[in-house]
């Protein structure tokens, strides 16, 4: 198992204490793409922030790559996330000061396990895999939404993480681009043997995933 979440409970204190996730358990092995769907406000994003270790304020156990993330301190958690988790947002957020290639390279430059030339090679390979090689030297703000999302996926993959978490990665795209992005994620899941969790409202996506989970009011429907 890449991801093992057990009995996750999450409370928000604002405006008053209320429970947003209730006893959520979820395991994802490598090579599986799981999509989470459900009404707006049901807790999909909240769950994904927890699964990607961005939000550590929760109850329950979360093991990624056999590491209990609650045992990590703040700085080793950052390193752990850098190494093992790729995150894709709804708004495909690239850094506008950097060109496409640099955006993809940034996580690997932080990890600094390889030298810059190798990182550049990896990044270019990934860019061609997502069909964006021709845009490598472009400033990232010149790209369309769908193009940016593909670059963001390449960025999420650069350190070869075992888990990819994507919060409505196609939420901002038209049907055609949505399908292209989804196909890309699916292909990555299979060919690269990743565990992928996607939150989505798109039926085409959750019907075509390896597994889909419906969230209702903070709980997983069994």
């Amino acid at each position, binding site marked *: 198992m890449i991801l093992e979440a057990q009995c996750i409970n999450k409370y928000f204190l604002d405006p008053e204490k209320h429970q947003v996730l209730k006893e959520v358990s979820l395991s994802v092995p490598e090579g599986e793409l799981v999509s989470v769907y459900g009404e707006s406000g049901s807790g999909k994003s909240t769950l994904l922030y927890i699964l990607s270790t961005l939000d550590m304020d929760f109850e329950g156990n979360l093991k990624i790559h056999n590491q209990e993330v609650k045992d990590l301190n703040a*700085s080793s958690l*950052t390193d752990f996330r850098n190494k093992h988790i790729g995150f894709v947002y709804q708004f495909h*957020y690239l*850094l*506008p*000061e*950097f060109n496409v290639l640099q955006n993809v390279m*940034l996580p690997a430059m*932080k990890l600094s396990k390889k030298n810059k030339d190798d990182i550049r090679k990896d990044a270019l390979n990934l860019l061609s895999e997502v069909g964006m090689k021709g845009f490598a030297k472009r400033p990232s703000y010149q790209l369309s939404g769908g193009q940016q999302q593909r670059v963001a996926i390449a960025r999420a993959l650069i350190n070869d993480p075992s888990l990819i978490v994507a919060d409505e990665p196609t939420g901002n795209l038209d049907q055609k681009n949505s399908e292209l992005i989804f196909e890309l994620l699916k292909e990555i899941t299979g060919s690269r043997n990743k565990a992928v969790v996607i939150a989505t409202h798109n039926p085409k996506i959750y019907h075509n995933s390896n597994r889909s989970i419906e969230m209702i009011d903070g709980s997983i429907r069994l």
Partner: protein
Amino acid sequence: MSEQVFNKTNIFIALQYLAARKKQSFLATIGVLLGVTTFIVMINFMTGVNDFLDDAVFNGSPDIIISATTKRNSKKKPGITTNYIENSDKVDEFLEKDQNVESFAHQIISPAILISDAKQFPGSINGIFPDQEDEMVDLERRLIEGEGFQSLSSENTILLGISLAKRLQVSAGDQIKMILPNGKNIVLKVSGIFSFGITTIDNVRTYVSAATLQNLLGQNSISNIHIKLRNRDNVRLKDYLIQNINDITTEDWKDSNKTIVIGNKVRDILTWSVSFALLLVAGFGIYNILNITVIQKRKDIAVLKTIGYSSKDIVFIFLVQSLIIGILGAFFGAFFGYIISYMISTTPLDTSDFIIVDTYPINFKISYYVLGLLFGILTTIIAGYFPSRKASKVDPVTIIRGI
């Protein structure tokens, strides 16, 4: 800490952010540059003037002057009489015993009219003992023409201040006539011309040998004793003399140079306050720019955090930006400060009423440049620290939810 924040990647990111806001970064650099330049120029100039005055005034005049208050000959007309110290032996005894006295010299001072072929002017005639006076005043360094105190050992010679010599239209080797208040007169050969750089001295001061003056005045007393101290700030000797010796007054360097002492203080305060104010403004500029950047770039910071950059990396990335601005601004500021100071130091200066110099006195001490650099860089570090810390506190979840 295992992680090292000082690395190429973080510096690369910082540079990229700076380059993305070239104009603001440039202006912030200019701000620091102006602060440091002003500091350098002002401190070079102000301390240059201070040192010049210190040197000219304090080394040209004694630390304590003892003069007599009694009139030996009350028949003389007031205003042009000379008072004589009656107990000079007793004073000498005191001075010889005092540890803080470096040297002292007797003088007999009298006003006189000096007459050259062309002009006549009043002057203050200092009758001195060459060997003693050599200990007190380094006249060799201030000689324009001719020779120093030792030339007064030969008979009927006089040393003139430069301004007085110019007004009398005489140079070394010429002869002038001196008329004393008692009507006696004598022809003297100008054996040297000196300049202290201070108009009030160079306009009136002359030296003759004490023997010459004593002869003419029919006196073998002295009117003044000049004292040079080891520690100039300790003038307790003054009170001691007043209490123990009758009929004398004393004056120390602070009394006689009040305006200069105050002037030096004013210049110091001015230098530090203006430089500080300018650097404060520059610091606020940097603070502002980084603060705005942090607010505008909250999303980017959140993204950096999600892809593995730690809070410390973020602090470093932002601190480096202000540090680069600070270092560039400070170095160019010191450079321009030097250029401007140099230009000032070569600017010809018309003789003013107060000091006589060819060009402005400038102090190029290296320590001021080091101080200016430190000052500029420190300001930017402090100004950059708070926005950087703010940036590192950005919570990625809150920001990404809001994207």
